[in-house]
C-alpha cells in the first residue's frame, strides 16, 4: 500500500491522521459528556439525548439567521453567542422535561428508557412541524471553515481544532463543577446515598433538576458545535445516539474519567482502522472489539467501587 509514496508524504499523512483521531476523540467526548452526567449521576437512560443536541443545532441556525438580518457585523463571532443560547435552550427544556416526566420515574429506570424514547419521537416531529422536514444549512463565518496550513503538505481543519478546544474547555468546567464546587458535592452526595443526602438538608429534587438540565445543556452545546461538521435536520440526532451510548457504556456508566478514556480508545481504534480498511469494516471491527471487552468487563473500563 505504501510502496509508491515518499517518506515526507507518509509523514504528512501520519500527522494528519493523528489529528483526525484527536478530532474524532473530541467529538465523542463532547457528545457523550451530557449523557454521562445524566446516566452516571442519575441513572436515567436518556434516549432523547440526540434531540437535545439537535435543539442546540436549530438554535445555532436561528441565531445565524437573526444575526445576518439584524447585525451583520456580528456575524464572524455569532457562533459563541449561539453556543450560549443553545446551552440555555437545551438546559431549560431539560429541566422542564425533568419536572414534567423524569422525576416521576426515578424508581423505575427501565421506564425512563421508554419515556425518553417517546420524548425523542415527539421532539423529532415537533422539529419537523416547526422547521420543516428538510435539512437546514447553517452558514458559518468564513474563518471557521477551511484549514490551517501547518506545512506544505499538512493541513489541519480549523473546525476540528475548534471542537478540540471547546471539548477541553467544557470538560474542565464540568470536572470543576462536579468535583470542586459545593453544588458538585451535593450531586455526588445524592448519587451515593439519596436518603442520607436528603436527611442532611440537601434539596435532592433541586439537585436532580439542575443535573438533568446541565446534561441537556451540554448536549445543546455539542449540537451547536456539530453544525460545523454534520447535518441539521429533524432526525439528525439519531446519527449520534448510538455512538454516544457506546462511549458512555464502554467507559463505565458512573465515571467521567471512564467516558474520556473510552472516547479516546474508541476514536483511535476507529480512525486507525478506517485508514487501513474501509469505513464499514472499521465500524464492524470496532464494535466487535467493544463487545468482546464488555463480555470480560461488563461494568465498563472504569467503574465506581461500590460495596456490594
Amino acid at each position, binding site marked *: 500500500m505504501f510502496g509508491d509514496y515518499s517518506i515526507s508524504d507518509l509523514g504528512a499523512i501520519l500527522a*494528519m491522521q493523528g489529528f483526525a483521531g484527536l478530532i474524532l476523540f473530541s467529538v465523542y467526548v463532547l457528545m457523550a459528556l451530557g449523557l454521562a452526567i445524566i446516566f452516571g449521576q442519575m441513572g436515567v437512560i436518556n434516549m432523547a439525548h440526540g434531540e437535545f443536541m439537535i435543539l442546540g443545532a436549530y438554535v445555532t441556525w436561528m441565531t445565524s439567521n437573526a444575526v445576518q438580518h439584524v447585525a451583520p457585523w456580528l456575524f464572524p463571532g455569532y457562533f459563541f453567542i449561539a453556543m450560549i443560547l443553545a446551552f440555555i435552550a437545551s438546559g431549560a427544556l431539560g429541566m422542564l422535561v425533568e419536572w414534567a416526566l423524569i422525576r416521576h420515574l426515578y424508581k423505575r429506570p427501565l421506564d425512563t428508557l421508554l419515556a425518553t424514547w417517546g420524548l425523542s419521537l415527539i421532539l423529532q416531529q415537533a422539529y419537523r412541524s416547526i422547521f420543516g422536514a428538510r435539512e437546514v*444549512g447553517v452558514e458559518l463565518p468564513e474563518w471557521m*471553515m477551511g484549514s490551517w496550513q501547518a506545512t506544505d503538505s499538512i493541513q489541519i481543519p480549523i473546525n*476540528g481544532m475548534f471542537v478540540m478546544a471547546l471539548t477541553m474547555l467544557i470538560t474542565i468546567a464540568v470536572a470543576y463543577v462536579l468535583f470542586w464546587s459545593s453544588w458538585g458535592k451535593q450531586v455526588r452526595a445524592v448519587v451515593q446515598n439519596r436518603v442520607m443526602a436528603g436527611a442532611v438538608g440537601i434539596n435532592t429534587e433541586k439537585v436532580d433538576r439542575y443535573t438533568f438540565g446541565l446534561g441537556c445543556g451540554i448536549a445543546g452545546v455539542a449540537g451547536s458545535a456539530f453544525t*460545523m*461538521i454534520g*447535518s441539521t435536520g429533524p432526525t439528525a440526532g439519531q446519527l449520534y445516539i448510538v455512538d454516544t451510548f457506546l462511549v458512555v457504556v464502554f467507559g463505565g456508566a458512573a465515571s467521567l474519567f471512564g467516558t474520556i478514556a473510552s472516547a479516546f480508545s474508541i476514536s483511535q481504534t476507529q480512525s486507525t482502522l478506517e485508514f487501513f480498511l474501509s469505513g*464499514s469494516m*472499521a465500524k464492524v471491527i470496532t464494535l466487535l472489539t467493544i463487545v468482546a471487552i464488555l463480555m470480560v468487563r461488563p461494568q465498563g473500563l472504569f467503574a465506581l467501587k461500590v460495596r456490594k
Partner: protein
Amino acid sequence: MSDETKPGLKSPLRRKLLMGMAALPAVSMLGRPAFADVPATSAVNTTGLAVTDSEVTVGILHSVTGTMAISETGSVEAEKLAIEQINAAGGVLGRKIKFIQEDGASDWPTFAEKAKKLLVNDKCAAVMGCWTSASRKAVLPVFEQYNGMLYYPTFYEGLEQSKNVIYTGQEATQQIIAGLDWVNKTKGAKSFYLLGSDYIWPRTSNKIARKHIENHLQGCKVVGEEYFPLGSTQFNSVINKIKLTKPDVIYAIIVGGSNVAFYKQLKAAGIDLSKQTLLTISVTEDEIDGIGGENIAGAYACMKYFQSLDNANNKAFVPAFKKMWGEKTVIGDVTQAAYLGPWLWKLTVEKAGSFDIDKIAAASPGVEFKGAPEGYVRIHENHHLWSKTRVGRAKADGQYELIYETADLVEPDPFPKGYQ
C-alpha cells in the same frame, strides 16, 4: 333486542328514500349534457377501480414522517402540483383527479401495508410513490398481486422491471456512463476514487462505474473504493486517504445526513473543489440546501434535471412550483421526476382510452411527454424513461450550472450486459 327498539328500517318512508336514491344517478346523468364527450364509466373502468363519472382516485404514498421525510417531501409537493395542473386542464378522460395521501413513515413494512390499503380499500387507479429502493421492493409484491400501477420517481440501481411499475427516474447506467465518459474526455481523468453509503444503490452504481472505468475507458483505473454506514458523520480518515492517493476524480455516492458531514469536512480539510474534480450522482439541489452551497461549490453532479435548465417547459414549471410551495423551495432531480408521474399516467390513460391497469401497462411504451421540465421524455418497452443525461456544476448559491448534456436521449438499460 336492538332490532325491536329500532323499527325504522321497515318504514315506508325508507322505501321512498331508497327509490329516490336509486333515481339519483339518472338525475345526475340528465344534468351533464356539457360532458357528452366523456366516455361512460362502464367502458373505461372494467375492473372496479375508484372511477366515477366525474372523479378518479389516485394514491400518493411517501414518507412525511421519519428519516426519509427530508427527501420525500419534494416528491409529494411535485405530485400535488401535477395533479392540480391536470385538473385545471380538464382532468383525465373528463374526470377530476382526487388523491388519497398515505404516510409510509420511513418504514418499509408500513409502505407495504399502506400500498395494500390504497389498492384494496381505496381502489386507486394509480399510485405515485416510494423513494428508497427498500420501500419500492416492499410494495412491489403488493402491486403485482393486486394489479396496481406505481409511478416511482427516484434514480435507482436498476436490475428491476415490472409490468406494474413505471420508473420515472433514471436507472444506474443512464446516470453513470455518460458522466464518466464526459469526465474522462474533458478533464482527462485517469484515476478514480469511488465512495458511497453502504447500501444497495451506491454499491450497485459503483460496480457499474468500476466496470465502465476498467473495461471501457482507455488507461483508467480505480484507486480506491469505500463504503460508510448510513448516517456516518466522520470522514477525516478517508479524506486523508484521498489526499494520499491523489485521484483525478472523487466519485461520491453518499446520501442523507452523511452528505452534509462529508462535504463540510472535505472543505475543512483543505480540498478545494475548484481544483479537485468531484463527480456525484447523489446530490440534488435539495441536498445542497442542507450542505450549504459554499461547501460544495465547484463539484459536478450527473443526473437528468437541474432547476436551472433553460427551456420553455422548465421556465413555466419552476415558477408554478414556487407559487404553490413557497419562494424558497428548491427543485431537485427526483422532484422533477415525481412531477412526471401524474402526467405520464394521464397521457397513458388517454392513449389507452381506459383506466384498466392491464391496458395502461400495455399502452405505456411509446407514451411521450413533451411538457416535461427536463425537456422531453418517452416511456421505453421496459417501463423506464428515455431521457437525456446532464452534468452540472454546483455554484455557491445552491444551484447547478449546466455544463454538458448528451446529444440524444439515453436508452434505459436496467439489466446492463457486461456490467454485473
